[in-house]
């Protein structure tokens, strides 16, 4: 099991290594200035050097990310269900969902601070705002895609709406729901960083801004690398969860995979 997982990792490791090598070579050969684009080796060295400073920032951002994503999950699932509840609610709420995504965070930053202060709350809200949208849309579309025959069957058994929802719609929508979660979680760390730009005294976003302002491009890239790593870890965790939660789904797909000449 674990060995299979590891075997699945090597293509990405190989490709990433290749890309990093290409990057290093390009920087060295083309003589790109390091304040513009540092090489991977420089970034690694800078990362080593910045590590003690970086750690508390990482911890802060991780907290914000997790709290914000939990909120997004809650809100996303809730709204996805609400939107599925009736076509009137759907018609009424959908445009608002779209609207919520069209307000640049920076434009409402002063409001956020005035309403929620400088604590963790505004960051959590920004993360949730950024992440919940794909979750809602995927959940709503997934719920809508439920097999009509399965619903009919439950209805003949006298199932209530909520039973139909729990026993058919929700399990049937799980694959789409996970797709939404995967998209959402990818945005979560960046969302936290954007949230920190609203006003914060620590966090990766703060680190990144300060490094940018000091023209320490290598440190900027260190914080990007950390962001990427955090995002990848969260994405990976969701993928594992998906596999576990959708065993039936993947077992029926697997049939197909060995059936197919790949």
């Amino acid at each position, binding site marked *: 099991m674990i060995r299979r997982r590891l075997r699945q990792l090597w293509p990405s490791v190989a490709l990433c290594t290749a890309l990093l090598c290409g990057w290093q070579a390009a920087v060295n050969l083309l003589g790109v200035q390091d*304040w*513009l684009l540092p090489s991977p080796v420089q970034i690694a060295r800078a990362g080593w050097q*910045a590590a003690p*400073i970086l750690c508390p920032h990482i911890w802060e951002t991780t907290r914000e990310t997790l709290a914000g994503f939990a909120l997004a999950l809650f809100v996303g699932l809730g709204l996805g269900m609400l939107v599925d509840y009736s076509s009137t609610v759907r018609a009424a709420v959908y445009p608002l969902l779209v609207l919520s995504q069209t307000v640049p*965070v*920076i434009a409402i*930053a*002063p409001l956020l*601070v*005035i309403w929620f*202060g*400088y604590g963790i709350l505004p960051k959590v809200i920004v993360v949730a705002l950024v992440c919940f949208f794909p979750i809602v849309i995927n959940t709503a579309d997934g719920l809508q895609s439920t097999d009509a025959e399965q619903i009919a069957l439950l209805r003949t058994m006298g199932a209530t709406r909520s039973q139909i929802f729990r026993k058919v719609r929700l399990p049937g929508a799980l694959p789409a729901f996970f797709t939404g979660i995967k998209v959402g979680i990818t945005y979560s760390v960046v969302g936290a960083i954007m949230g920190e*730009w*609203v*006003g*914060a*005294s620590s966090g990766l976003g*703060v*680190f990144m*801004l*300060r*490094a*940018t*302002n*000091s*023209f*320490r491009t290598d*440190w900027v890239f260190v914080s990007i690398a950390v962001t990427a790593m955090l995002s990848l870890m969260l994405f990976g965790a969701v993928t594992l969860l998906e596999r576990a939660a959708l065993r039936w789904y993947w077992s029926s797909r697997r049939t197909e995979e060995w059936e197919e000449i790949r």
Partner: protein
Amino acid sequence: APSTLEPAVLSLDWVPNTNHTGLYVALEKGWYAEEGIDLQIQIPSDPSAALKQVAAGNTEFGVSFQEEVTLARSTGIPVVSIAALVQHNTSAFAALASSGIERPRDFQGHTYASYSLPIEPAIMSSLMACDGGDSALVDFIDVGFDAFPALVGGNVDLAWIFLGWDGVQAQLKGIDLAVVPLYGSCVPDYYTPVLIAGETTLADKGDLARRVLSATARGYEYAIGHPDEAADILLKYSPESDPELVRASQAYLSPRYQDDAASWGVQERGVWEGLSEWMADQGLIERPIAVDEAFTNEYLP
């Protein structure tokens, strides 16, 4: 006892830099605490956001610029400048030395990376007009994220820089810049940056402002006298900054905090009037503002 400290928030204009050294010195030395204040320093999403927060009164103090305060007051935003952090404008237009740009009229036919500040075109045109140039021939590009890299990368010919930061950085990196400083040119000098507070804050917590300024003044005076130690303190609070840059910048800026003023932080009515009238002339504001409401030295020690 710490439990009796009065909390207060001060919002910087941007990430910590040598403009802010005195604040951090006072914080580090415990001078705010001595005044009974628990000061929290925050970094906003952008300078205009800081100003709005201060105006709204939920952030007591902020760092802003004279032209911003003037603009804000003209639109009815109740903020007051209570101290000048640096006595003279350290802004400049910069070009790469290799570009051959030496004086304002050379700007013609070049591209300029703008911060989207309304004052930029006005200053540019005044400056060029004095030198017999026409700013209509300058190509403005609004760069929301960063202008200096664009200049150094050669993507634009001109950028607005701060001599005490970008200029120092260029020197350290061995980049030759041709600079046209604003201070001393035909454009009026103004205070940038300044410390601001909301009108309501001043009315309700005037004593707090006085105590904050008292500690802050000590901080800046220390920074004036001990550039190296002050730089180290700033670095302690902003360890992400480049130490070399901070030290060099501190050396540049320390003598300029007070400069020719009688004491640190003092603002002159003439400077406020001068900018206000000039901005009205330029059409940046509809009419000159009542400068006596826009700034005050009352809270300075």
